C-alpha cells in the first residue's frame, strides 16, 4: 500500500474552500449586485466545483489515513458518521427554510402572483413535504449541495478502499460512471417532479478526482502540471471560456461564435456537470497551483486568515451561509433592494461568517487544551470541521 504523499497541511485547500463558501453565499442571494464578482460570471465552472473537489480531496486525505492505520471498518464508520452529521445539518437548514416560507405564504397573497404562489403549495401538505425532505427528494432551491455531499459520502467507503489499492482503476471507474450517466440519463428522482439538481452520478467525478489528487495524484501529475504546454493550454482555455461567457452578457457579440460551434457547445449543463465545466475547473486548478505554491509565505499572513478559517470549518460555515442568504433575500425583498443595501448585506454576511469561524476555532482550541492529554485533532477540521 503506497503511503499518502503530502504530510503537512495544505493551506491552499482551506483558502479556496473558504473562498468557495463566500461565493456560494453571494450567489444564493437572488438579484445581488455583488454576484458580479463571483467566478460563475467569468467562466463555465463555479464555486460548486471547487467545494466538491476540495471536499473529495480532504475526505480522501483524512479517511485514507484512517483506513491505512485503523482499517476499513473504522474508516467507513467515520465516513458514515460524517454523512450523518451533514444530514442533520441539512434537516436543520430545511426547518429554517420552512419558517421563512411560512411567513412568505401569508405576505405574498396578491392576484398578480397566483401562479408563483403555486410554488408554496407544499405548505398545504406539510406531512408529505416533510417526509420527502427527509428522504432528500424534496430539496428547496439552493439546498441541493448538502444532499449531493451526503450521497457522495455514503458511497465513499468502497471508493476509498479502491483508491488506496488501484488509484487509476478507481478513477477510470469514476469516469465510466460519469459517461454512462450522461448517455443513459441516470439521476435520482426529486419530489414532486424532476431529478436532482446536482446529479450525484456525474458530480461524483469531481469528488473522486479530488480524492485521487488527495491520495498522491498531485505528485503523480507533478511533471505534467509543471509543463509549460499544459499551463499554456489551461490559460488559453480559461480565456476562451471567459470570452464565451461575455457573449451571454453582451449578446451582440454572440454572432462571432459560429453557429455549428454553438450547437456543439450548448447547453453547458450544470446538473450533469458538463465536460466543459469539468475542464474549466481543471484549467483553473492548473493555473492556481502554478502561481500559488504550497509554501507561499502570504498563505500564513493575517490578511488571508479569515478566508482560511472559514474553509477550516466548512460544514458550519456552509450552513451559516445558506441561513444568511435566506436572511439577505428576506431583506432585499421586504425592506430594500437598493444597491447600497445589497453591498451591505453581502459584506455583513461575510463578516458574520468570519466571526463565527473564529468563534468555532477559539472554542475548539480551548476544548482541545482542556482535555489535556489528547493532541488537537487537526484532521477533523481538515475534513470540514466537527467530524
Amino acid at each position, binding site marked *: 500500500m503506497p503511503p499518502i504523499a503530502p504530510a503537512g497541511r495544505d493551506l491552499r485547500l482551506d483558502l479556496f474552500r473558504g473562498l468557495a463558501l463566500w461565493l456560494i453565499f453571494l450567489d444564493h442571494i437572488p438579484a445581488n449586485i455583488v454576484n458580479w464578482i463571483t467566478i460563475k460570471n467569468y467562466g463555465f465552472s463555479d464555486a460548486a466545483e471547487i467545494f466538491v473537489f476540495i471536499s473529495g480531496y480532504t475526505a480522501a486525505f483524512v479517511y485514507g489515513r484512517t483506513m491505512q492505520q485503523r482499517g476499513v471498518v473504522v474508516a467507513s464508520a467515520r465516513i458514515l458518521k460524517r454523512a450523518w452529521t451533514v444530514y442533520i445539518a441539512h434537516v436543520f437548514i430545511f426547518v429554517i427554510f420552512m419558517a421563512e416560507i411560512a411567513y*412568505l405564504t401569508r405576505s405574498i397573497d396578491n392576484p398578480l402572483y397566483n401562479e408563483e404562489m403555486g410554488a408554496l403549495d407544499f405548505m398545504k401538505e406539510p406531512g408529505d413535504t416533510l417526509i420527502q425532505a427527509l428522504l432528500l427528494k424534496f430539496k428547496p432551491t439552493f439546498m441541493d449541495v448538502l444532499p449531493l455531499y451526503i450521497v457522495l459520502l455514503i458511497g465513499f467507503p468502497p471508493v476509498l478502499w479502491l483508491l488506496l489499492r488501484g488509484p487509476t482503476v478507481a478513477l477510470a471507474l469514476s469516469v465510466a460512471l460519469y459517461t454512462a450517466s450522461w448517455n443513459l440519463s441516470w439521476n435520482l428522482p426529486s419530489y414532486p417532479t424532476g*431529478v436532482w439538481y446536482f446529479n450525484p452520478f456525474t458530480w461524483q467525478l469531481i469528488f473522486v478526482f479530488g480524492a485521487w489528487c488527495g491520495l498522491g495524484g498531485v505528485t503523480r501529475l507533478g511533471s505534467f502540471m509543471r509543463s509549460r504546454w499544459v499551463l499554456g493550454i489551461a490559460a488559453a482555455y480559461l480565456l476562451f471560456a471567459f470570452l464565451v461567457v461575455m457573449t451571454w452578457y453582451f449578446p451582440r457579440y454572440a454572432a462571432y461564435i459560429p453557429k455549428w460551434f454553438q450547437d456543439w457547445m450548448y*447547453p453547458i449543463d*450544470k446538473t450533469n456537470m458538463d465536460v466543459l465545466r469539468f475542464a474549466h475547473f481543471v484549467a483553473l486548478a492548473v493555473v492556481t497551483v502554478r502561481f500559488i505554491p504550497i509554501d507561499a509565505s502570504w498563505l500564513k499572513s493575517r490578511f488571508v486568515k479569515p478566508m482560511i478559517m472559514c474553509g477550516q470549518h466548512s460544514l458550519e460555515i456552509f450552513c451559516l451561509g445558506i441561513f444568511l442568504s435566506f436572511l439577505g433575500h428576506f431583506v432585499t425583498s421586504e425592506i430594500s433592494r437598493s444597491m447600497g443595501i445589497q453591498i451591505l448585506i453581502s459584506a455583513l454576511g461575510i463578516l458574520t461568517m468570519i466571526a463565527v469561524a473564529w468563534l468555532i476555532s477559539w472554542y475548539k482550541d480551548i476544548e482541545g487544551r482542556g482535555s489535556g492529554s489528547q493532541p488537537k485533532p487537526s484532521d477533523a477540521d481538515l475534513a470540514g470541521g466537527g467530524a
Partner: protein
Amino acid sequence: MKLFAGILLGILTYATAAFAGAGGECGVAAHLVHADAAMPRVATAITKSKSLNVVVVGTTSSTLPGANGQALAYPARLEIALQKRLPGVAVKVISMAKPRQTAQEMADGFPKILKDEKPTLVVWQTGTADAMRGIGAESFQATLEGAVDRLQAGGADVIFMNMQYSPRTDAVISTAAYADAIRWVALEHALNLFDRQGVMRQWSELGTFDLLAATKSLDTAAKVHDCIGRLLADLIVEAVSTDPEKKDIIKQ
C-alpha cells in the same frame, strides 16, 4: 456631471413618453421593450390582408382571476391597444393560457392551434411552470428551439414573454436559468423577446406599482396587465414599422 446626467435623463424620459405608444406610468419601462427582429409574417398580414390573428399561449400569469379577469388581463388589453394603433386592421387576440403548462405541454398543443386559429403571431409566455415543476433548463431550451421552428413553418411569427418579476418567490422558484434559455433561443432564432421580468422589476424599483403589497384587490394587477398589453403592442408595431412602405398605415 450629476446635473448633466439628470438633465439628459429628463430629456430621454420626455422623449420616450412623447413617442412611445404606452405613455404614463407604463412608460418608465418603455426603454426595456424593443423589437430586435423583424416579423415579416405579421407585416404582410397587416398590409396585405388587413387582419391580424394573435394567439397568446401561456400559464396563469397571463390571466387574472375573477369575473372581469379575462377583460383585464394583458391579452385583452393587447387587443385593444393594437386596434388603436392599427386602424383599419382587424385585430383579434385569443388567449389560450392554462394553469401549470410546461413549455413541452404547450408545444404539444401548437399543431392544433395552428390549424384551428391560423395565427400570424404567437405570443409565447413560458418558463415559470417549468421552473416550478423542476423541468431541466436544458430540456426546456431544447423544447423551445424545436417548437419555434414548427411555429414559423406553420406561418406564425413568435414573441417570447419571460416570467414575472416576483422577488418574494425568488427563494422558492429559481428562474434565472429559464430566463437565460428563453433569451438564448430568442437570440439564436432572431425572435423578439418581451422582457416582462425586466419591465416589472423597473416598475417595482421606481415605485410605479407596488408589487409587494399583500392584497386581494385587482387594482394594481389590472394596471400592470394593461401596461403589459400596451407595451407589447408597442413592440409589435415597432417590429413591423421598420419598413417605410408599411409605416403609413400605423398610427404613431
